């Protein structure tokens, strides 16, 4: 895809024009991302609040009505509901993989089947999480399979 950046003339408003043959998923995701601007999440640790870039988050998990974001090494509480996160970041690589977790697909190293239709997913930091069969179809869809 060709990207052209032009400076507006004096007095003109800044504008992004997308010239495309059809509005496919990729373009729609791009539009959504542009509309949302830079998504940064607030992560709450014991004594500090940090800005979390969604791309650095491996997965979100809901435990006892609290939602936590897991980066490679750290865990932060995120004061949002899991469904809000799912809605807000589904245009990125985030995907619901169980009732209580959303994973960043880009952080999955590989997965392998375990008993009873479940898949053990190894993340790029070595951590393992489980995806149940009912969510595998969504992962396949997300990957365009």
């Amino acid at each position, binding site marked *: 895809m060709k990207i052209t950046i032009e400076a507006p003339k004096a007095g003109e408003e800044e504008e992004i024009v997308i010239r495309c043959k059809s509005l496919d998923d990729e373009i729609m995701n791009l539009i959504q991302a542009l509309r949302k601007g830079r998504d940064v999440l607030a992560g709450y640790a014991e004594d500090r609040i940090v800005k979390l870039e969604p791309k650095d988050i*491996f997965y979100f998990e809901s435990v006892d009505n609290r939602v936590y974001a897991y980066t*490679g090494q750290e865990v932060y509480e995120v004061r949002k509901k899991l469904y809000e996160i799912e809605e807000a970041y589904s245009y990125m690589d985030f995907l619901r993989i*169980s*009732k209580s977790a959303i994973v960043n*697909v*880009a*952080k*999955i*190293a*590989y*997965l*392998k*089947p375990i*008993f*009873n*239709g*479940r*898949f053990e997913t190894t*993340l*790029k*930091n070595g951590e393992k999480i489980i995806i*149940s*069969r*009912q*969510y*595998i179809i969504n*992962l*396949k869809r997300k*990957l*365009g*399979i």
Partner: protein
Amino acid sequence: MTQAFVFLVSHKETGFVLLVKCPQENGPGGVNLKRLYDFIKWFLYITTGILFICALNMAIQGDADIPAATLWQILLSGLLTAAVTAFFHPEEEGRLPAVLNIFLHFLALCGVMLLCGRWFGWLKFDLPGIVMMVLSVAGVYLLSFLAYYIIDVRQAEQINRKLQERYGDEAH
């Protein structure tokens, strides 16, 4: 108009013949097509398993003829056990821990098959008869697990390949 049912003759992941493909969750009148698809899938797997066990049993016992009624009994017991399986949804995330759900599902299947066995006169309702039936159910259960495992291995390979293509170069 809703594209409710798509009848297929082959299943792309397994190469096995399947009757129905479910393109979406809900069909006309709010029918949950995913559930219907799962039910038919379980019915096919379980009936095949029961048929296999029956064939094995008959071969061991040297029975040459199958009464016509037995074929209907196999289909009916497949239908009942598929209904029990649909109730437990062993492949979905439920409220019960997976192992407990499997155990209860297995017990329920044994119960249904024992009742069918008694009703259809497949077994003597004594200890050896009951043990034989439980072992048969375990055999069908293992066959179903094996079939699923083969499908899952293929799915995992497919997904891993795609993950590698798309994100393989990304550092974490």
